[in-house]
């Protein structure tokens, strides 16, 4: 607990015990909100009260001790009364904010679903006609390839936006998930992308073992996005390494690449929406790592990025073990 708050309570309590002045009780009621703002738990307040009190009555005769205990409880009662009422208000304020956010999310969801639905069919038209152009006009092959790449980017962006809104809006269902199995699926899904860049994906864990977590239905998206990111930013012909480590109470998954790495100033921000790596040659929507972070947080885990001592980045995800 904040030492200043503690000192103020001590001062109030000691003054009240001396003079029984109503003013001290009034000060106590004002202190309650600050305790909430500083996220001090009721248990902590009660512990603080008795700690201060026990110091104050040390070495006193029993009868006097009893009287002081009784007297001091008035101060604690006053504090907890205001605390309880203010706490309820605090919660209600958060509920209102939550509802507002939900409303916004619903709107975002609707917007994205309209956007993705309405963009998809014209996009497929572009892709389809683009294929035909090559047959009709062989000279345009280079342009045609550029159009194809751009169209694919749009497609990816739409998919990412959909996933992002889905992981935030849809109710999560948790079940036991084996990370080895999940990672195998993830690697398989991204195999073609790795192959295109001649990237070897190494697995540095025993796939025969069980690495069980209580995972949501979106957990795969976290690993898909992190691995996809590693492949995207890796130089052609390099390797990406996935390892799983046993830590007390949790599994730690590391995905190590040999790309450019993430500069320190981006290490936190990279998990926000629309923050991307190095200038130029950018291949993502900027949503992928935000999806990963959202999902990992929903699964009560942590995600961060470290420097690979060999050059490149190591993305780490921890998840609590299935109990």
């Amino acid at each position, binding site marked *: 607990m904040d030492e200043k708050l503690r000192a103020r309570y001590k001062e109030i309590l000691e003054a009240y015990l001396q003079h029984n002045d109503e003013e001290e009780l*009034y000060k106590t009621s004002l202190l309650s*909100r*600050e305790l909430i703002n500083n996220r001090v738990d009721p248990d902590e307040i009660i512990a603080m009260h008795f700690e201060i009190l026990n110091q104050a009555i040390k070495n006193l005769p029993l009868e006097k001790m009893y009287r002081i205990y009784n007297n001091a409880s008035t101060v604690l*009662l006053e504090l907890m009364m*205001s605390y309880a009422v203010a706490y309820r*208000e605090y919660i209600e*304020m958060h509920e209102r904010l939550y509802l507002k956010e939900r409303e916004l999310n619903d709107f975002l969801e609707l917007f994205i679903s309209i956007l993705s639905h309405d963009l998809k069919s014209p996009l497929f038209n572009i892709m389809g006609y683009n294929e035909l152009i090559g047959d009709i006009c062989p000279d345009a092959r280079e342009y045609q390839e550029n159009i194809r790449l751009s169209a694919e980017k749009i497609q990816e962006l739409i998919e990412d936006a959909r996933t992002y809104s889905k992981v935030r809006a849809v109710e999560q269902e948790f079940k036991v998930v084996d990370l080895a199995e999940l990672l195998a699926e993830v690697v398989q899904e991204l195999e073609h992308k790795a192959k295109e860049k001649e990237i070897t994906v190494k697995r540095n864990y025993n796939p025969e073992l069980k690495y069980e977590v209580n995972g949501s239905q979106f957990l795969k998206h976290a690993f898909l996005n992190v691995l996809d990111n590693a492949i995207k930013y890796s130089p052609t012909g390099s390797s990406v390494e996935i390892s799983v480590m046993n830590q007390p109470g949790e599994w730690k998954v590391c995905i190590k690449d040999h790309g450019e790495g993430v500069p320190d100033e981006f290490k936190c921000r990279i998990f926000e929406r629309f923050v991307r790596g190095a200038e130029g040659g950018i291949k993502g929507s900027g949503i992928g790592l935000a999806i990963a972070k959202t999902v990992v947080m929903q699964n009560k885990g942590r995600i961060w990025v470290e420097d690979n001592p060999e050059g490149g980045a190591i993305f780490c995800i921890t998840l609590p073990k299935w109990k």
Partner: protein
Amino acid sequence: MEIKVACEYDIVIARSAAKTEAKKLGFTIVDQTRIATAISELARNIVVHGSDGIVRIEEIEKGDRKGLEIWAIDRGPGIENIELALKDGWTSGGGLGIGLGGAKRLMDEFEIQSEVGKGTKVRVVKWMRN
């Protein structure tokens, strides 16, 4: 009993007076604290908004029930949106205390009348448990 409220120390006097009355009537220590906390808030509202006013404390009876009725009356700026003021205790009103909504919760009855530019009247009642 009527107490003038113009500065912060008057709040303490109002609280103290209400508690003495409540104790005399036989309210429990928990209810005495509820009443004191609610009064703190009502009186604070008067002081925080820079006006002066009064707090009136009266013993009342309804059938065989006894209670304490408290009025907080000021000549302050008044409240434009009462519903919001009740809800919004956390974000407005000087940043401390529990707000009007909190006072309402602590008492059994709560009424408020307010006119912008003229002032606000709040009446709260706490009934004794039989």
